[in-house]
C-alpha cells in the first residue's frame, strides 16, 4: 500500500529541499522542484517513495538545467539568498567564497557521481542509491569513493588557488 501524500510530504520534504538546494544553489528553485516532485507523487503514488522522490527530483534538476541553458537563465542560479540576520560582513564574505569553491568542486564531478554523493549525504543506502540512479548495486561503493575523492581534491585545488590569488 502506498503512503498518503501528506505523510510523504512530512517525511521527505525537508531532506528533498536540502538535497535540491545543494544541487542547484537556489533555495526558491529547490522548493519549486520539491513541490513539483510531490505533485507528481500525488498523481502517481510511488510504492517505494524515498528513492522515487529523489530520483524524480534529480530528473527535474536535469531537465531544468537543460531548459535554463537554452534560455540563458543560468545566471539566476548564482544569485545569493540574503540571510535574515546578516553576520559580520567579513565572516559572511569568507563563507560565500568558501561556498563558491565547494560549488565549483561539486560541478567538477560527473552527474552520476554528484548525485550518488548527494543521496548518500541524505542517508541513502547503497540499494536505495542504486534504485534511484539506475546503477548496479555493486557499482555504488566505487562511485561514492570516486566522488568523494574528486570532490575533496577539487575543493583543495580551488582553495589553494583562492588563497594564492588573495
Amino acid at each position: 500500500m502506498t503512503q498518503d501524500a501528506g505523510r510523504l510530504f512530512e517525511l521527505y520534504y525537508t531532506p528533498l529541499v536540502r538535497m535540491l538546494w545543494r544541487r542547484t544553489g537556489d533555495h526558491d528553485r529547490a522548493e519549486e522542484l520539491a513541490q513539483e516532485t510531490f505533485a507528481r507523487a500525488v498523481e502517481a503514488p510511488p510504492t517505494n517513495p524515498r528513492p522515487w522522490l529523489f530520483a524524480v527530483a534529480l530528473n527535474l534538476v536535469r531537465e531544468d538545467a537543460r531548459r535554463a541553458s537554452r534560455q540563458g537563465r543560468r545566471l539566476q542560479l548564482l544569485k545569493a539568498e540574503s540571510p535574515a540576520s546578516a553576520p559580520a560582513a567579513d565572516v559572511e564574505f569568507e563563507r560565500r567564497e568558501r561556498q563558491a569553491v565547494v560549488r565549483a568542486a561539486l560541478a567538477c564531478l560527473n552527474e552520476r557521481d554528484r548525485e550518488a554523493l548527494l543521496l548518500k549525504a541524505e542517508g541513502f543506502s547503497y540499494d536505495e542509491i542504486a534504485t534511484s540512479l539506475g546503477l548496479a548495486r555493486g557499482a555504488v561503493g566505487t562511485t561514492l569513493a570516486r566522488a568523494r575523492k574528486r570532490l575533496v581534491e577539487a575543493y583543495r585545488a580551488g582553495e589553494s588557488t583562492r588563497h594564492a590569488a588573495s
Partner: protein
Amino acid sequence: MQHPDTDLLNTWLDGELSAADGAHLEAHLAACPACAARAREQRALHQEADRLLAELDEPIPDTSPPGTIERAIRHPASAHPAGRGSPVVLLPYTELIRQRRGVRRRVVGVAATLFLAAGAGWMALRSDASGGRAATDILSNTRSPAASTLPPLVARAPALADSASGYSGVQPDAAPGVAPVNAPDSERATNTASPRSNVPQANSANPPAPASVPRAVPSFADAQVTPVSPRRDERAAPTATTFKAGIAPTEPQQVAELKALNEREPLAVERDAQISTRIGLDEARRELGGNLHVIDGLQAELVGLVPGRLVPGADPSRPVVRVVYLDGQGQSFFLDQQRIAADSRDRQALAEAVPGAWLDGDVQLRLHGALSNDSLAGLARRVK
C-alpha cells in the same frame, strides 16, 4: 584475513558490510596498524566530503518553527479565508511568512497551484484509507501515549532561559479552532534518518580502557567532524512541512487537547532528534539502571529512545536514551546516554574515541549538537 582493499574499507565506513564481514574487518584493523591508518584516512575523506556538502546549506531567512504535519490542519474550514468547503492549500511555512510580509514571490503561485492538486489528492487518499473518517479522528489516534507524561526535568536557568522557550516564541499565528495533531510513528519517523548511521570508528585499534574509568573530560575538539551520517534537519527544517488546510475539526475538546499537545511538543523536534519512542523519567531510569543525567539548570525539551545503530560509538543493539534541549534559535542539542556492559572494554575505548563522549560509571554519555565546541564543553561540566 588479507589486507582489505580501499573499496572494502569504504563499504565498511558506509555501513554496508554485513555484521560478520564487519566483525572480521574490525578484528583485522585492530591487529594491523597499516590498515587502521588507511581506514582513518578514508574516514577523514568521508568526513571532509560530508563537511563540504554541509557548507552548501544556508541558514534560512525568517527563522521560523520547524513545520510539522500537525499544523497542516490548523485552519478549520469556517476560518479559512476562502470560506467553508474551500480546497486544501498547502504551502511551506516560509511562503506563509513571505505572503504575510506582502512580498510577492514567483514561487507562491506555483506552490499554491501545485498543492491544490496535492491537497485534493491527499484528501482523497485520506478518505480512501479511513473509510471516510474525519482527518482529525485519524490523526488523533496516532498521538504518542507518552506525550503528555513528560514533566519538566529541572528548573530553568536564567542564563539560558530562552533555550527552552525558543520554540513557543516562533509558533505561527494560530487560528481559532486550531486542530494540531501530534502524529509520531516511530517506524516512519526513523525512516527520515539514515538507515546506516552507526559509522564505525576506524581507530578501534586503541588499547582497551582500564576497568574502572574515572569520569573523563569529554573532548570536543573534533566535534565538528563527528561522522553522524543521519543529518538532522536543523537548517532546512523551517522550510518544511507546514501547510495549512481547510479541514474542520470535529470535537472541540479533542481539538483543545491536540492544540495543547502541539504547542508543548512540536513533532519536528522529536523527528529531528531521531527519537523513535518518547519515554518518561521512570522508563529512562530503568533503561539506564540509574538516574537520568541532565544538564543542571536547563529544561529538557523531551526525553526519548534513539535506536543504538543511529548513534556513533553506541551499542547498536540497544537504544540510547536521548535528552533533547533547544537553544535560543530553536537548534537542538542532545545529551545521549547508554548503559555499557561492564565487561565490554573495547566498547569503552570506542566510546571515548567519539568526540564529546565520556563515561560516568557504567553509563556512556555524549553531548552533541548544533552548538560551538566551547558551549558544549561548558554544558558538559554541568551534566549530573
